[in-house]
């Protein structure tokens, strides 16, 4: 079955520390992959996407993600977290015409 798994429901990091959010997918081929961020009361904003080519993808707000086919993973990283990064992060893949989301990871940032 096609699915996206985000193993960490909550993550807390200190401001200035590095961040990695995990995402694993299950799909028969290489899907189109996305990371979205959702702040309280807001819609989802696209951070970055991977369609093909370079497996390290740069996004907005200093985020990057690396596609690893052998691990079926697309982990999101940021070298130095800011307090404004506190939000919920969703990994998603596009298979056919349907965008399938993971359950999300809530990021909390300690001062």
């Amino acid at each position, binding site marked *: 079955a096609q699915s996206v798994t985000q193993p960490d429901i909550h993550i807390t990091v200190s401001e200035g520390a590095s961040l990695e959010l995990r995402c694993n997918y299950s799909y028969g081929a290489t899907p*189109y992959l996305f990371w979205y961020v959702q702040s309280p009361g807001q*819609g989802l904003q*696209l951070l970055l996407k991977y369609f093909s080519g370079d497996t390290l993808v740069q996004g907005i707000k200093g985020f990057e993600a690396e596609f690893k086919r052998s691990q079926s993973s697309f982990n999101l990283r940021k070298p130095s977290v800011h307090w404004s990064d506190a939000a919920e992060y969703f990994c*998603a893949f596009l298979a056919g*015409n*349907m965008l399938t989301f*993971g359950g999300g990871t809530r990021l909390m940032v300690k001062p």
Partner: protein
Amino acid sequence: EAGVAQSPRYKIIEKRQSVAFWCNPISGHATLYWYQQILGQGPKLLIQFQNNGVVDDSQLPKDRFSAERLKGVDSTLKIQPAKLEDSAVYLCASSREIYNEQFFGPGTRLTVL
């Protein structure tokens, strides 16, 4: 460029009542999506339109949910009658075409009592 607009932002109803949500996509976007996001979960696609035609409604509970996109622009999503488990945020999104980046509206938070 104006974003995706949705209204109302919040709605509280009692079970068995009906409710409707409205979405105005980004101008020129042919594809429109409605998602349901239950608390603690990722969004789930309910229905997808290409212009005024339905592309995918396989996950829409058709016994109580309906949606339309007359004239291929605005869209409404209706629930009749509502159940407690329909409490969720309903997100509308649009894209230029299928497979293009989706832009999301702020959502409508529905509480069914």
